């Protein structure tokens, strides 16, 4: 064999090795790309997308529920049937014109919890009541203006309940005989996500961190905790699809004439 041929053969071997190397590198790069992209998509983006904010006052629903007769005592329906949302100062002042609780005793076994509550109330009275200033609550369930939602219709409707074989998931609340059905209904959608746990709002001892979508400015509760958008429960999210599930069924079963304008007035 002549020298140049040899060289050619050697060249061919090199080429093979080289393309295998390139292939391996490409595969590796593709893997890295895939990994980075999945990592960013699943783990980094949720962290970046949502800002974490604390409510101006750490309100304790559980304590208040002991004093009142159900959710709608404070989250009232106005005379015209519209839902008033978060209570206003004028409602709170009925009880909290002055600080109601006493400073806890450091010896108390619940000292820390009691102190937290006490501080929250002092802050509320000093910063808001005294200055006649509404508390700028961050609303977890705030929807865009193009959405019309009637709490009254849902609260009063026979159709609105979690079915035994709930298509979407197990009912978050089992209606007990002695339970106010209204409250149970509120909790079907309004759950507080505290430290990864879904707690009915009425039972929550503090308010969840408000995670605001930096792009849309709506709460994370609307899209849902699950970043993929797949949810198990009624209360996991409050996007259009969630409403549509039930509304579509109703329409398909001929029970209603639901259409876009039911919600988009």
């Amino acid at each position, binding site marked *: 064999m002549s020298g140049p041929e040899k060289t050619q053969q050697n060249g061919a071997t090199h080429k093979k090795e080289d393309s295998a190397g390139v292939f*391996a590198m490409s595969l590796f*790069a*593709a893997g890295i*790309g895939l990994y980075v992209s999945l990592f960013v998509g699943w783990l980094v983006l949720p962290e970046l997308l949502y800002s974490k904010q604390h409510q101006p006052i750490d309100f304790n629903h559980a304590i208040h529920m002991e004093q009142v007769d159900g959710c709608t005592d404070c989250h009232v329906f106005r005379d015209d049937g519209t839902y008033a949302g978060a209570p206003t100062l004028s409602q709170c002042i009925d009880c909290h014109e002055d600080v109601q609780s006493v400073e806890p005793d450091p010896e108390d076994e619940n000292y820390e919890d009691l102190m937290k509550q006490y501080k929250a109330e002092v802050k509320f009275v000093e910063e808001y009541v005294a200055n006649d200033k509404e508390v700028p609550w961050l609303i977890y369930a705030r929807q865009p*203006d193009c959405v019309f939602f009637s709490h009254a219709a849902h609260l009063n409707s026979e159709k609105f309940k979690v079915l035994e074989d709930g298509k979407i998931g197990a009912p978050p609340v089992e209606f007990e005989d002695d339970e106010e059905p209204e409250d149970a209904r509120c909790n079907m959608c309004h759950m507080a996500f505290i430290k990864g746990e879904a707690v009915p709002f009425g039972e929550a001892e503090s308010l969840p961190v408000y995670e605001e979508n930096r792009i849309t400015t709506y709460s994370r509760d609307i899209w849902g905790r699950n970043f993929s958008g797949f949810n198990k429960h009624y209360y996991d999210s409050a996007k259009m699809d969630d409403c549509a599930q039930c509304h579509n069924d109703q329409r398909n079963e001929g029970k209603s004439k639901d259409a876009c304008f039911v919600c988009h007035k």
Partner: protein
Amino acid sequence: MKLNRRNFLLVSTAGAAGGAVGSMFSPLSWKLMDDSSVWSQNWPWTPVPLDGEVSFEETTCALCPGGCRVKVRKVDSRPVKLEGVDGGPVNDGGICILGLTALQLVYGPARVRTPLKRAGKRGEGKWVEITWDEAISDVSEKLAELKGAGQSKAVGCITNGAKGVTSALFARFMEAYGSPNHYWQATAWDSYEENIQRTLGLNGSAGFDLEKADYILSFGAGLLDGWGSPVRMFQAHSKWRENHDAHVTLVQIDAQLSNTAAKADKWLPINPGTEGAVAMAMAHVIISKNLYDRGYVNWSTTGFRDFFRTVQTEYAPEKVAKIACPVQKPEYVKKWTEELESRAIAFAKAEKPLALAGKGNGDRPVSQAELNAIQSLNALVGSINREEGGMVVIPDADKYPWPPVVLDADAKGYKPALVTTKGRTKYGASNLLSNLPKAINAQHGGLKALLVAGANPLYTLADTEETAAALQKIEYIVSFASQMDDTFTYADIILPDHIYLESTVDVPTPPGFAKPVYGLAKPVIDPVYKTKAMGDSIIEIAKAMGGTIAESFPWGGFGDAMEQAMNEKWNALDSDGVYVNEDFQPEKEGIRFRFFARAGMEDRISLQGSVEKYPLVITPCDTIRLSTGALADTPFMVKTVSDTKLKKRELVVQVNTMTAQQYGFKEGSQAILETPVAKATVLVHCSEEIAPGLVGVPRGLGHIAYDEFVGGKGTNYNTLISPVQDPATGFDVAWGIRAKLT
């Protein structure tokens, strides 16, 4: 593996592909897509209505004298909409475009938000914010200084008419202060008041039972262009048209095809300024055909014999046609004359005919000669004080039962007003505001201080240049404007008024309404800015001045003065917001209508300018979409003005197609419109809706102040014309001016 360019690209592409595949399996792209679509619904400039408790509160609109009952829809404390109140005695659920958009006056950029004091030169627009205490003491000190120097008569005051408690408080202040110089601008309704005194010997204003009339002859009255109480007129018109069995005929006698003329059963075009002569010609027909109401004429009138003679000799339709018919072609004149005759006959034969005066929206006075003629038609057919569908006199309200004004020696002394009157008029010189600028300019130092309360003379008076020169001569101008209006630019200090939604305002019987009705506006929202009701401001100024002036204002505030003024009406007004005198019966006993023989041609008001130099005549066009008074349009209203009146920022004038051709103009041509007093660049709109030789100029445009939405649009009609005095009253009755288009 060698890291050459090719391999590098391959590996990177693989990495990117991996990334791309990964992104398909992560929510990243889907989530971001969803979020961006939600984000796009949240543009910061997209208005989002407030969420809150919806409530409605009723009040009376006080933006014009119309007296409409309105309700404000509020979300929590924020007003979001105004609507008419069903069953409102004047408007029954209706509302006009100004009333509807009044919230733009509350929140608009032209709102004066705090007391201001001029910092730069006049017109420079430099102001410093001051407190209310500073504002009140500034004004009271200046007025006290002038009074101390024996100059009390050199203080003038301009209000928006004479009626209402606020105007009465300003009048009272002027009396206690010792100045005779309180003025307001007369309107067609002032002309009616004068005419009622002259023809019926009564003190009162004109009311028309339009809802019941069945044949209406309107001499240029823009019934659907803002005349009277505008919403009531729209509703009356709908009623006429609803009832097919008893069709009400509306004949519009007008120089142009106004909105009213377009909706009338018949439009009889005439030359502007000949309304009186046309009415006399109609009287001629009615008398000649023996169609007049003998009972009424014999028993309830005087002067018929002379009137009869004059009408028969001077006002034959053929003769009147020579001046009044807009096209002087024999066959046209013949048809026109026949039309006039047939309309006069139908009018006289109708069961409840009614003749109306008041050009356009009625805010310009009408000459007494013209009114005499038009009212003579009403007398001939027995429409004065007729049970139904006639004209009634609403007696002037009693004086407010306030304690007497306390006068010091200075205030007791006689001082002539700066404006002189011609003959005896009901309000003396007071409603001759149109003559004030000339008087100020003629007499140096005539006025040293001026209070402008609810008026905008720089805009509303004819001959803006003369008015501006007069204002410039006044050392100290106090404006109570709620908006940065035209006169505001000349003010030295501003004490901004509330908008009626924030205030208590009384609304006396609306012009032309056939029953005494009183409305009350009550605060339905808290004041949005640091403003104060004008009534409170003047009371505070009076109190700060001390002495007899303070003694003349014994009330704690405007509310007390209002309550005392309303007297027995107060309870009804306080609880219902409106008081209607349902038992009202017009005074008939011993009331005789006096015919005036002189009317029509010889008393025709001649316009300024020679025919040779100025061959055309400007005639104003009014529309409900353009406010012509002290208060300008709201931004929304300006947007609704058609481009045959305003194109971008240019005034569009209407010219007959023949006239346009004669002067070489086409649709949209730019032209210079020149009158003996001013010039303006305009665009020409060619149309058949106006008689040849006329230039139709929209009124209500060309404000020099306000905001970008209202100011600087078109030209103010009043800058182009100059006042022409009615020989009988001295009111400015100019219905136009001679002009040329080049």
